[in-house]
């Protein structure tokens, strides 16, 4: 295998973006494994596909619209009941912004 396509620094950056914390051992393993997948993907990276558009839906379906009418009852209580923490009918989390200066 040639130069790995990813460095541990790349993977550490991606883990931060994805809100995941990795141990040093996981970082090394994932760097190796993700490099292998990207290495395999070099077969399509090398293709000249300039004449082709992207496909996101096989049958070319676009927006699905409906009449603006109420169709279901509120599930608010059930949804709140499944939340880890709730206060005054709202999801409750810890501090979002930093300390005031």
């Amino acid at each position, binding site marked *: 295998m040639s130069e790995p396509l*990813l460095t541990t620094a790349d993977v550490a950056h991606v883990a931060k973006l994805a809100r995941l914390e990795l141990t040093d051992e996981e970082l090394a393993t994932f760097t190796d494994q*993700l490099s292998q997948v990207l290495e*395999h993907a070099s077969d*399509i990276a090398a293709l000249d*596909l300039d004449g082709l*558009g992207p496909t996101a839906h096989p049958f070319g*379906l676009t927006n699905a619209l409906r009449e603006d009418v109420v169709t279901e009852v509120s599930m608010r209580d059930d949804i709140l009941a*499944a939340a880890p923490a709730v206060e005054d009918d709202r999801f409750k989390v810890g501090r979002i912004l930093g300390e005031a200066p």
Partner: protein
Amino acid sequence: MTTAIELAAAIKRGERSAVSVAEEAFAAISARDGEIHAFLSLGQDHAMEAAARVDAAVAQGAPLGPLAGVPVALKDNMCTKGWETTCASKILEGWKPPYDGTVVERLHAAGAIVVGKTNLDEFAMGSSTENSAFGPTRNPHDLTKVPGGSSGGSAAAVAAGFVPLSFGSDTGGSIRLPAAYCGTVGLKPSYGFISRYGLVAFASSLDQIGPFTTTVADAALSMEVVAGYDPKDATSINEAMPDFTGALSKGVEGLKVGVCADLLDGAAPDVARRVAEAAAVLEAAGATLVEVAVPELKLGLSAYYLLAPAEASSNLARYDGVRFGLREERDDVVAMNTATRTAGFGAEVKRRIMLGTYALSAGYYDAYYGKAQKTRTLILHALDRAYESVDVLLGATTPTTAFGFGDKVADPMSMYLSDLFTIPSNLAGHPAISVPFGTGDDAMPIGVQVLAPGKRDDLCLQVAAVLEAGAPR
């Protein structure tokens, strides 16, 4: 094993009671699921109540649904109201959905008895069920072998005779692969034929729900029950469905079957031999065999392992410890998000989230995600061209029979290669079916795969019925 159709008929005629059928299913599960581990949870109380309602309807001569009294199992990534739905992940452990998925609603309406939720690779990411946070499922034919994945629990539940019908989801082969490994029929319908409302999202442009059954006719009947337009799924196809059951008796006289080397290349000799025998069965039944090359299909693997992780990284961003599931409490919210996701996701899910995040990140988007989306177009065009000269394509479902536990876990790329023959149908949104066709050198089941053009699930069933009749006993 009694089929869903036979059970429903016997219950309707009053020869069997739905309660006794359900009791039998739970007895079989309690006798053998300790070693197989097909189920993550059982719903015995609700199932027995539902069965009693079917029996009451029979006694009153009330109209019955087509699956009245038939025990059914659901992959545990389908939302069941008030019933824990885990996706085999610690991050959703204990979560009870506030609603039923459309498939679940339609099964209830058809009189089916949902007996339990089945094991899977965490968030349907895997080909063996070894990625389940709650322990793997074992293959009922040989407990030292994997059942395949990701819908391994649903395949094993049918193969073990616990239920005649189960449902799984197929994003890159997750119905067809375990069906092949466990010796059941497994259908991945056309994208948009079965509502994804209430299916926990993995890769939304590829995910599709479908049935596991012991016969092709049961697969057709289950499509009659669950397929069709659903306004709750924005990608649902709003067209009349083909006649699934009517296709079963059509035969293959005059049909052109493309024997596709690109759906065999790299298959073990015993698997390749069975595919050749399957082709001969179709030829003897009046089909014309045509050798077809679709070399673009093998590019599907690379495209898939960029597109599916990219979509997954976006879909799984919702598991942030705020609204449902696990929360690892920390003082500030970003630390809480990170701690929750780190503790809640297993290694394969983390691997795919990172791969997808990378493929979508600035500087790599065009090279990876963009290229993969165009490759998807390339494969669609290649299949369109192939279907100008043939009606269906025939190939292997999987390169080998079921492998052993631990064989591929340490090497994700070798695990991913198991999906080589199943991925193209997901990228194209086309239907494909795996039909049991004899066994391999190791006496384990082999599946052959029939691929059809988009929205022609009836063609898959039509050809599968002939293969089923001609399969080695």
